[in-house]
């Protein structure tokens, strides 16, 4: 083994306290990045996942006009012939007023978001039906599913109760219909229908006088990575329509852009944390240099050049960086594994969507390794400036 590397290793490993301190500094720097990534990127990915699962699918098709004029069935059949498409379902949205008699008191809730779904297709393209924790999903033309937030506003409606929905149709006329509450929906994180009422799409069409219309078609893919391919293929296939096809990220851009900025900021803070660990390495290496002043003088006196001393202490930085990056990455991966296996969530909110981002993991490890070397440059340079005679006088 190269004598300078061997000497660097022995000097370092004989100062176990300093070595452990320096490795801890690197490890903590990496761990901060991993924890940030697991929590904030996991939260972001979980929101994207839930938006996709509940609202948009992997590709969301809308029309530049408010409603899709083409038959939803013909479009869905066309889409389902694409090998990547697992299912597609139409949706229609409106706002209405809900009235309910609770304990002999009439409670009105206005401007309630109402979503019309095709129950048979919706459970194939969306998992929102799984958020119905009490009762069952929409199954008939007069059943309604209410979100928990809405239920609270309505004074505690229960499954089996009757509610009256009033909607203004396309001609400006109020249309009223009584529904039986079939289920109550609550999603972790509130990305589902917690604030909405869900009814059969044909019932909503009848109320709005918009037979055959839908305002979106959500498309679920068996391979979500093909979303852009499917989107582009769809748009190319209907060049004369005013369709808009978007991936889940595009469809929820307004909702996610602020979050992304937040993640970037948190990551920046994480990298500043890593920088402060570099300062810790500078301090520890300065202590190592000070502790080895006499040895440096001896080496210089028996012929070691300044360059040799520089290399010895840079090797120490490399050893600290390599071990720290290894331990930090292992610890970070351990935390990521734990978060993934336990489907980590906070205060019962949505479960984090934890992924192993190997590119980021490698980048973080490499960056911390480079930072450790960079942090060792100044102490190494200081070591080279020691004069042999004076250095050997140090006790």
């Amino acid at each position, binding site marked *: 083994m190269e*004598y300078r590397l061997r000497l660097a290793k022995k000097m370092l490993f004989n100062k176990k306290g300093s070595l452990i301190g320096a490795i801890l500094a690197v490890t903590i720097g990496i761990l901060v990045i991993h924890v940030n990534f697991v929590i904030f990127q996991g939260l972001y990915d979980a929101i994207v996942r839930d938006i996709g699962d509940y609202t948009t699918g992997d590709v969301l098709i809308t029309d530049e006009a408010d409603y899709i004029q083409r038959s939803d069935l013909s479009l869905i059949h066309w889409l389902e012939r694409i090998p990547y498409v697992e299912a597609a379902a139409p949706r229609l949205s409106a706002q209405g007023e809900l009235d309910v008699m609770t304990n002999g008191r009439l409670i009105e809730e206005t401007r309630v978001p109402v979503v019309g779904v095709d129950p048979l297709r919706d459970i194939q393209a969306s998992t929102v039906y799984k958020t119905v924790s009490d009762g069952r999903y929409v199954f008939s033309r007069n059943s309604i599913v209410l979100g928990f937030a809405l239920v609270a506003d309505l004074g505690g409606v229960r499954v089996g109760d009757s509610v009256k929905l009033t909607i203004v149709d396309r001609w400006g006329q109020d249309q009223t219909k009584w529904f039986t509450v079939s289920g109550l929906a609550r999603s972790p994180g509130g990305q589902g229908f917690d604030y909405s009422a869900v009814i059969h799409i044909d019932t909503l069409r009848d109320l709005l006088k918009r037979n055959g219309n839908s305002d979106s078609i959500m498309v679920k893919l068996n391979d979500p990575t093909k979303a852009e391919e499917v989107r582009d293929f769809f748009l190319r296939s209907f060049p004369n329509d005013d369709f808009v096809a978007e991936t889940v990220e595009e469809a929820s851009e307004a909702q996610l852009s602020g979050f992304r900025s937040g993640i970037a900021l948190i990551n920046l803070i994480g990298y500043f944390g890593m920088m402060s660990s570099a300062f810790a390495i500078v301090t520890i290496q300065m202590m190592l240099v000070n502790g080895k002043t006499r040895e440096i*003088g001896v080496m210089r006196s*028996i*012929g*070691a050049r300044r360059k040799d001393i520089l290399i010895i202490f840079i090797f120490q930085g490399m050893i600290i960086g390599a071990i720290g990056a290894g331990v930090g990455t292992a610890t970070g991966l351990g935390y990521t594994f734990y978060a993934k296996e336990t489907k980590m969530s906070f205060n019962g909110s949505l479960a984090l969507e934890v992924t192993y981002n190997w590119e980021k993991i490698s980048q973080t490890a490499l960056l911390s390794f480079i930072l450790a070397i960079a942090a060792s440059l100044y102490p190494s340079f200081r070591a080279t400036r020691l004069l042999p*005679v004076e250095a050997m006088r140090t006790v």
Partner: protein
Amino acid sequence: MSFSIEKGEMVLIVGSSGSGKSTLLNMIGLLDRPTEGSILIDGVDTTTLNDGAVSTFRNRKLGFIFQFSNLLTDLSVLENILLPLQISGEPHTEDDARKLLSAVGLDSQASKRANKISGGQAQRVAIARGLINKPSIVLADEPTGNLDSVTSAKIVQLIKSMAKKLNQTFIIVTHDRRHFGDVDKIITIKDGQAFEGEQMEVPA
């Protein structure tokens, strides 16, 4: 001051404390630079060498034996002896180091860490380290200054036998020349002047 030393001589530099013996030795050893004048070793004016050349010169031409052995405590005895060879970058084997270790009577201690041996043993290791590169000049600064009288006598005997065996120039700073018995030359430092011999005669 001005003096010259021939190849193969054993020279003692003596003088009272603070007279400048060690400073003189450091200048010969290129660890310190004179403010004026020159030091010629093997015909090379060492005061004109740059830092890199000084390091190479120290490694190839000079061997050092310090008062406090100054071994690297992180290394083993054998590794300490090998260090000057490794610094030189020349191809080498452990054989020479082991022979020297045997010559100083420590062949059984080769793998021990340098801080696990006694002061006398450490000084013998330092002697071996000072000789490993077959230097033109071996510089010893109070090599027995930190040892008891029995060990000192052994170390002096060892230095003298090695000097005779290797025919190398030894320049030894000591405050007590009695340990060394007969040597080729004695230089006495007094009041910033160097005088040959033990009689401190002030020139007219």
